[in-house]
C-alpha cells in the first residue's frame, strides 16, 4: 500500500534530550500523523512493541545499553517492524560497520549530522517513494516466492531507461538465492562492463564459489579487497572460500585483518573464534568468543554456541573453572531454550572429562542425549557434530561413529558437512574407516531414493511412497528424502486424483523442508503443484 509522509507514524530514538526534541519538532513540522520519542534502546523496543511505526529515526549512539544497530536487529528479529517500515540511522560519522555490509540487518538509509528540516524531509520523501516502488518485490521475497520477485524486478527494469543499480543488485541476489548462477553472472558482467563496482565484482566471485571454482573465487575476492580494503563483504566471502579449500590458517589471518577494521560484527567474531579454535590458536579464539558475547549482550543475536565454544577454549587451556563459569552464564542467559540446554550439557561433558570426573561427564552426556531426543529431529547439524565429538572424547567410539553416519545420511548431498564429518574421523585417527563409512551412508540414501523413484516410474507409486516413508523414519532430517517423497505423493495424486491425507502429508513435508532450508530450490515448485492439485 502506498504511504505518504503525512500519514506516517514516526518514532524518534535518541539518548540526547536536545536532539530528541529537535528531531520530534522537525517531524511535527513536516505534518506527520504522530511523532513519539524514546530515550534509549530498551525504551525504544517497548515503544516499537506497542505501536505500529511507519518511520523510525534512530541515533546510532544511544549511550549505555543497546546501540541503534542492535535496536534495529532486535526489532527485525522480533518482527516489531515490517518490510514497509522505514528505518533511518542518524550518525555523526560514517563507519564501515554501517556502510559496508558488516551488519547482517541494515537500515534503509543513514544520515550524517547535522540534520535540518529541509534535508530530513527530502530524504524521507525519497525513501517513501522508493519503498512504495519496491513494496511488491519485498513482499514476494518475504513470502519466499523468489520467482515472482524476480519477475517483478524484470518488469520494473523494463520500465526504466537506465537500470537503477539497486534493482539490479536485488535481482542478482535473488538469482544467486535460486541457484540461477549463469543468469546472475550475466547481470554482474553487464554492470562491470560500464563500471568496476565492488558489489558486482564480489558477485562474480560468489558465482565462482557456488560453482566450486574456489581458486578463481579466492583471486576475485582478494582483488576486490586490494581495491577497497574496507569492503567487508568480500572479506567474509574470502574466508568462506578459504574454509572450503581447507586453508584455515589463511582464513584466520583474513579474519584477524577484518575484525581490526570492523570489530562490531558478531557473526565475523564468532567465525574467527571457530576458525582459531580449530587451528589451536586458543588465545585468539578466547578473545574472539569473548568479544562476540560482549557485542551481542544486548542483542537478539545472542548465540549459545558461542558460550559453548568459549567453554571449550577454557577447558583446552586447562582452566575448567573458567569453562564452568561460562556455561553457568549461558544457562542464565538462555532460559527455556532447548538448543542451548543441549549445547551446555555437551560442553559440560567435555569439561568434566578434562577434569577427570568421568561420572559427571557421563551424566552430562546422558542429559544431552535426552535433550536431543526431546527436540525430535530439529537439532542443528552443528550441534550433532559437537555431540559426536563429545562421544569420542568420552571413549564412546561406536555411538560417535553411528551419530556421524546418521548426520551424513541426513545431509548426504552437503559436501561441507561430509568434510566436517571426515575431519572428526581423522582427528580420531580413523580417517580411512571414516571415508568408507561416509561413502556407505551416502550410497545407502542414494540407493533408497533411486529405488523409490524407480518404483514410481513403473507406476507403483504406493510401493515407492512406502519405501521412502521407511527411509524417512531413519533419516528424519534428510531434505532429499522429504522432497522425493513429496514428489511421489504429488505424482500419485496427479494420477489418481486428490486425497486429503496425502495432501496433508505433502504439506507437512514441505513445511519441514522450509524450516530446514528455506532456500530449497524445488520447494516452491512443489508448493505451487500442491496448490493446483488441491484446488482442482
Amino acid at each position: 500500500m502506498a504511504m505518504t509522509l503525512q500519514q506516517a507514524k514516526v518514532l524518534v530514538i535518541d539518548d540526547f534530550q536536545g536532539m530528541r526534541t529537535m528531531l520530534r519538532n522537525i517531524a511535527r513540522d513536516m505534518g506527520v500523523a504522530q511523532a513519539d520519542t524514546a530515550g534509549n534502546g530498551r525504551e525504544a523496543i517497548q515503544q516499537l512493541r506497542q505501536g505500529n511505526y511507519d518511520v523510525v529515526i534512530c541515533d546510532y549512539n544511544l549511550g549505555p545499553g543497546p546501540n541503534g544497530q542492535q535496536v534495529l536487529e532486535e526489532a527485525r528479529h522480533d518482527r516489531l517492524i515490517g518490510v514497509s517500515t522505514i528505518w533511518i540511522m542518524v550518525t555523526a560519522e560514517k563507519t564501515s560497520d554501517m556502510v559496508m555490509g558488516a551488519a547482517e540487518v541494515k537500515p534503509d538509509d543513514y544520515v550524517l549530522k547535522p540534520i535540518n528540516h529541509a534535508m530530513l524531509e527530502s530524504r524521507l520523501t525519497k525513501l517513501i517513494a522508493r519503498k512504495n516502488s519496491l513494496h511488491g518485490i519485498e513482499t514476494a521475497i518475504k513470502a519466499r516466492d523468489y520467482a515472482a520477485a524476480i519477475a517483478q524486478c524484470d518488469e520494473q527494469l523494463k520500465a526504466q531507461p537506465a537500470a537503477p543499480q539497486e534493482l539490479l543488485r536485488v535481482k542478482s541476489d535473488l538469482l544467486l538465492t535460486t541457484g540461477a548462477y549463469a543468469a546472475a553472472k550475466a547481470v554482474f558482467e553487464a554492470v562491470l562492463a560500464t563500471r568496476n563496482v565492488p558489489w558486482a565484482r564480489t558477485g562474480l566471485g560468489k558465482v565462482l564459489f557456488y560453482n566450486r571454482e574456489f581458486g578463481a573465487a579466492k583471486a576475485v575476492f582478494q582483488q576486490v579487497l586490494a581495491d577497497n580494503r574496507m569492503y567487508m563483504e568480500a572479506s567474509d566471502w574470502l574466508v568462506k572460500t578459504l574454509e572450503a579449500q581447507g586453508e584455515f590458517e589463511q582464513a584466520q589471518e583474513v579474519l584477524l585483518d577484518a575484525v581490526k577494521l570492523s570489530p562490531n560484527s558478531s557473526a565475523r567474531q564468532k567465525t574467527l573464534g571457530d576458525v582459531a579454535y580449530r587451528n589451536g590458536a586458543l588465545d585468539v579464539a578466547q578473545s574472539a568468543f569473548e568479544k562476540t558475547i560482549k557485542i551481542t549482550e544486548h542483542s537478539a543475536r545472542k548465540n549459545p554456541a558461542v558460550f559453548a565454544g568459549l567453554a571449550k577454549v577454557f577447558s583446552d587451556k586447562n582452566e575448567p573453572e573458567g569453562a564452568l563459569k561460562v556455561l553457568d552464564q549461558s544457562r542464565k542467559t538462555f532460559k527455556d531454550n532447548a538448543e542451548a540446554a543441549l549445547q551446555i550439557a555437551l560442553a559440560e561433558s567435555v569439561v568434566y572429562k578434562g577434569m577427570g570426573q568421568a561420572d559427571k561427564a557421563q551424566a552430562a552426556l546422558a542429559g544431552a542425549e535426552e535433550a536431543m531426543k526431546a527436540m525430535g529431529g530439529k537439532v542443528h547439524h552443528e550441534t550433532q557434530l559437537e555431540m559426536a565429538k563429545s562421544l569420542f572424547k568420552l571413549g564412546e567410539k561406536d555411538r560417535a561413529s553411528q551419530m556421524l553416519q546418521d548426520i551424513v545420511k541426513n545431509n548426504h548431498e552437503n559436501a561441507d558437512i561430509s568434510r566436517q564429518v571426515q575431519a572428526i574421523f581423522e582427528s580420531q585417527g580413523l580417517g580411512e574407516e571414516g571415508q568408507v563409512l561416509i561413502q556407505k551412508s551416502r550410497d545407502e540414501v542414494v540407493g533408497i531414493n533411486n529405488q523409490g523413484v524407480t518404483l514410481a516410474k513403473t507406476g507403483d507409486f504406493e510401493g515407492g511412497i512406502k519405501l521412502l516413508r521407511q527411509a524417512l523414519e531413519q533419516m528424519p532430517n534428510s531434505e532429499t528424502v522429504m522432497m522425493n517423497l513429496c514428489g511421489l505423493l504429488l505424482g500419485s495424486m496427479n494420477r489418481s486424483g486428490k486425497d486429503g491425507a496425502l495432501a496433508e502429508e505433502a504439506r507437512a513435508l514441505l513445511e519441514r523442508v522450509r524450516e530446514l532450508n528455506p532456500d530449497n530450490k524445488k520447494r516452491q515448485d512443489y508448493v505451487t503443484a500442491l496448490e493446483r492439485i488441491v484446488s482442482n
Partner: protein
Amino acid sequence: MANDEINFTDFIASSIHDMKNSLNIQVSSLETIALECRDRGDHETFEKLGLMIYEANRMNANLIQLLSLYKFGQSTYPMDIAEHVVLDVIEEAMLQNKTLMDFKGLQVSVDCDPDCSWYLDRDLVTGILVNALNNAYKYTDKKIRVVAQVVNHMLELRVEDDGRGYPPNMLYDGAVTAPKGVNFSSGSTGLGFHFASRAAAMHKSGQGQGTLTIENGGRFGGGCFVVRLP
C-alpha cells in the same frame, strides 16, 4: 602501537559526535529564533543570527573534513561508491545551506539533467559541494550557480559565483592538490580545498581519478570551483 591509534580514532569520533550534537541543536535553535525575528520585522538581529549560523555550519564542516582526512590517511575511510542521481546529491547539499542562502538573499540556480546519475560516494561529494557553497557564500555578490554535466566521460560539478574570483596566487596551475599553507591573516587554513581535493581523488576508476580545480570566469565571471569525477 596500532591499538593506541584505534583508541585515538574512537576518541576523536566520540568527541566529534558530541560536538556535532551540540552544533546541530545550536543551529536548529538559532534558525528558529532567526525566523521569529524576521517575522516580527527585526531584520538587524535576523542578519546577525545569520552570521552565527554560517560560522556554526563552517565549524561543523571543518569537523567532518578533519575526521575524513584522518581516515583517508589511515586508509580506513569507508568508501561507498554507488550510483546516485546527481541532482539529488546537489539538492541535498543545497538543503544543508538553504537557510544560509535565504539569509543573504542569494539566488542559487542549478543546471543539471534530472536523469543524470553517476557513481560516487554520496557523503564525500555532498561534503565537497557544501564546502564549495560555503565558500561561494562568502565571496559572492548575489548569484551562485551549480552546474553538473558529463564532459569527456567525467562528471563535472561546477560551483560558480559572481564575486571577484580567486586571487592570482591561488591559481598558478589550476589544479589544487595540497594546502597552500596556513594563512593566519585571512583565517584560511586551506582545509576546505585540501579536503575537497583529497575527497575527489578518492574517486577512482579504470578511466582515471577525481580532481579539483579552481579558476575564474564561468557564466558570472567570478570564482569557479570545479570537481571532476571519473
